[in-house]
Each structure stands twice: as structure tokens, then as C-alpha cells.
């Protein structure tokens, strides 16, 4: 099996999913480290050096809002979904369900049917 090709495709696939997961998780406010842990607990491993710049980019795009606050005597930056972010998330989730449904259909229904015909 071509492991490099698989790894590249897997990373490509995960990249888009991570944005969706981050947006979904930030429906409730949280700071970066807590988000890493939440994603990890949910089964999505993410490198901090990928997450923090991603949070900034999403904030620059207006999908997230952030504020510095003190928690446990430490200054932390808390992120939450903005109004625009909520709208984008809803549309992305719908898109995700459509893609997921299409992939399910394509991988489970059509190919065996074609094979049966062959």
C-alpha cells in the first residue's frame, strides 16, 4: 500500500474537517488549550501549532470573536463563534451532511450494484 499517498490524502481530508470541528466546538466559549483537549477527547487529534494559527485565521475572517480574560490566575484568550460564524457553521454542517450522505451512497450502494451488473 502507498502509505505516503494515503497520509497526504488523509491530511487533506482532515484539514477541512478540523475547521468544521473547531467551529462546532466553539459554539460555547473556550480557550485554545481547552479546545485542543476537547477535540482530542472527541477523537480529533490536532497539533497546537496548527490550531492557534487556525483560530486566528478564523477570527480574521470574522467567524470567531476573542477576548483576553483571567482564569485560574492566568491570562487566557477565549474564543467563541460570532454571529457570522454561526451562520457559516450551519451552512457548513448542511454541506457536510450532504457530502457524507453522497459518499455513503457512492461507497455502499452504487459500486456493488455496478459490480453485480458486470
Amino acid at each position, binding site marked *: 500500500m502507498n502509505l505516503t499517498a494515503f497520509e497526504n490524502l488523509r491530511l487533506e481530508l482532515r484539514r477541512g474537517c478540523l475547521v468544521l470541528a473547531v467551529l462546532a466546538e466553539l459554539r460555547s466559549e473556550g480557550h485554545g488549550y481547552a479546545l485542543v483537549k476537547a477535540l482530542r477527547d472527541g477523537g480529533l487529534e490536532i497539533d497546537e501549532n496548527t490550531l*492557534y494559527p487556525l483560530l486566528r485565521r478564523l477570527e480574521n475572517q470574522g467567524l470567531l470573536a476573542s477576548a*483576553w480574560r483571567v482564569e485560574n490566575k*492566568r491570562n487566557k484568550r477565549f474564543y467563541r463563534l460570532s454571529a457570522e460564524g454561526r451562520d457559516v457553521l450551519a451552512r457548513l454542517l448542511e454541506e457536510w451532511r450532504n457530502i457524507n450522505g453522497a459518499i455513503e451512497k457512492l461507497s455502499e450502494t452504487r459500486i456493488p450494484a455496478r459490480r453485480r451488473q458486470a
Partner: protein
Amino acid sequence: MKRELTNKELLDRYIHAVKLMLMLPPDKMEDIGAEVRANLESQLEDQAMALRRELRPEEVSAVLKRHGHPAKVALQYREQPGRALISPALFPLYWFTLRAVLAVWVTIRVIVAVFVFQGTTPAGTILLTLGRDVLLAAIIMPAGVTLLFAVWEYLELRFRYSERWKPEALSPVPPHGLQPPKPRPTVQIIGGMASLVLGALALFSSSFFWVWGARGVFGPSDALYAMRFLLWLLVFCWASLSWLGSTRFAASRWLHVLRIAVEVVGAALAIFLVRSGDLLVAGPKWIPTQAKSLATLNQMVAGVLVLACIVVGLDFLRRFIRFMRRPGDRGLSMA
């Protein structure tokens, strides 16, 4: 004995290094630095809680090491992560140009060295000079070509020329497809014989490729230095624009304007050189007593340059005739 750094010192140094490598405005640097610090402090705190004790400096060092080199961390925070000086789209052309420029330069320099060797200069001196020049060229030329392409890349990023193309403006497919038609055998024979005759004349005739130019404006040797630069520049521009014609910029409106301008200048310069008076020799500064082989080389170089000018002029003429013949399309689509 070297003092062991404390946990705080280790963290401070790491954050400082990240901030230095961000190369962003100070407020952004501070903001990102604070965020990286908050993240690392949380990690260290978690680890200390799991171990139920204060972390030792080597454990803090391990956490920082795992977090990644400051340069790697900083790179992720750049405004446009992974942006290259020369983008992948332009890189093949960049790489080709770089190799072509170096190959042409080295070839010319070696030919010059061979001709100089026939003179009175000792072989060792020639070889040393050749080695020095090749080394210098290996440094300077890639730098120059990279700079040119970086400027091109910047202009592309800023003005998005490549997004302005229209499918309608692409060149039509020639009737013979991608392969040019094979020349007839008679044309090949005549062409081959002409090359041999011209080559022989260039090598053995002392006056065949001498060019007249710039009477009253420059002396012969000054004219040489003034003109060869312009000529080379012109040939370079023409060749560059020809390459551009087969890239993604082929449909750019300003490319055609630039190409036409270069060709007009090329034609005018060729006419000027043919019509003017004093002797012009391209190559090293002309000294009447210098070796004959070097003089011949000068004449050959001059000949190549003038031929290039004539080709540019003829190419312009061909485009101009095509443009005049094209009914109802008098825009900027001369190419």
C-alpha cells in the same frame, strides 16, 4: 560552571525566540507571544498536576522541544502561511530560466577563454580567471534571476494578471498541431550550407561581421560598451517575452503592449546600427593591436547580436502584417 536555567527562564527564552521569528508588527508579536505562553503554561500546569509536583527544568525543556522549534511555530502564524518567494506555478519557468542563463553565460565565457588562450596570456591565469568568473556568476546570476521572478510574483499577487485571461484570447491551434511541419529536404540542405558558409566567414574573414554604428556620438570602444548592453538587454527582453507567450500570462493585455514596444525598439536599433557610421565591435574593449583571434571573436559576437536585432525586426514585421490583415480586430491582439 554553567548555571542551570529556571523553568521561567526557559519559557521566557522560548517565547522571546518565537516573537523574534514572527517578523510581524510589535502588537501582533506580543499578542501571539502571549497566546503561545498561555498555551504552554496550561500544558506545564497539567503535567505538574499529573505528577503532583513542580516540574524540573529538563521536563520543561522537553515540553518546549515537543512544541517545536520557535521558527516552525512562528512560520505557522505568518499572514500567508507557506507563501513562497517563487510560487509553484512560476517555479518551472524560473528554474528553466536560471539554468538557461547560467548555461549561456558559462558557454560564452568558456569560448572567450579558448580564444584568449590562443593569445599571449598564460594558461594558468586564464583558468584562474575563468574559475573566479564562473564562481561569481554562480552567485550573482541566481540572485538576479530570483529577484526578477520575485518582483514578477509580487506584481502577480498584487494585480492578479493571471486571473484576467479570457479563453477567447488564447492562440488558435496551428493546423499541424503541436509538432511543427518538417522542412523540405532542399530547405534543410540550403540552410545547412548557408550555416557552414556563414560559420567559415565568421571564423576566417576579418571584416565580414563588423558592424557600422554611432558616428560622431561614440568612439569605437565607447560605442562598444554603450551598445552591447542595450543589445543584450533587448535580446534578453525579446527572449523573455517569447517565453511569456507560452505561459499563463499569454493572454495578458499588457504583455502584448510590452512585446510590441520591445520589438519596435529592436527594429529601430537594428536600423540605427546599419545606417550609422563608425565601427562597432561587441565584446571586450577594442584595442587595434590585440590578438587576431580575439578580434574575430568580437566580430562574431557583434554578428550574433545584430542578427538577433534583425530577427526581432522581422518578427515585428510579421506580426504587423498579420495585424493589418486581420479584419475587424484592431485591439491589442497583435500577438
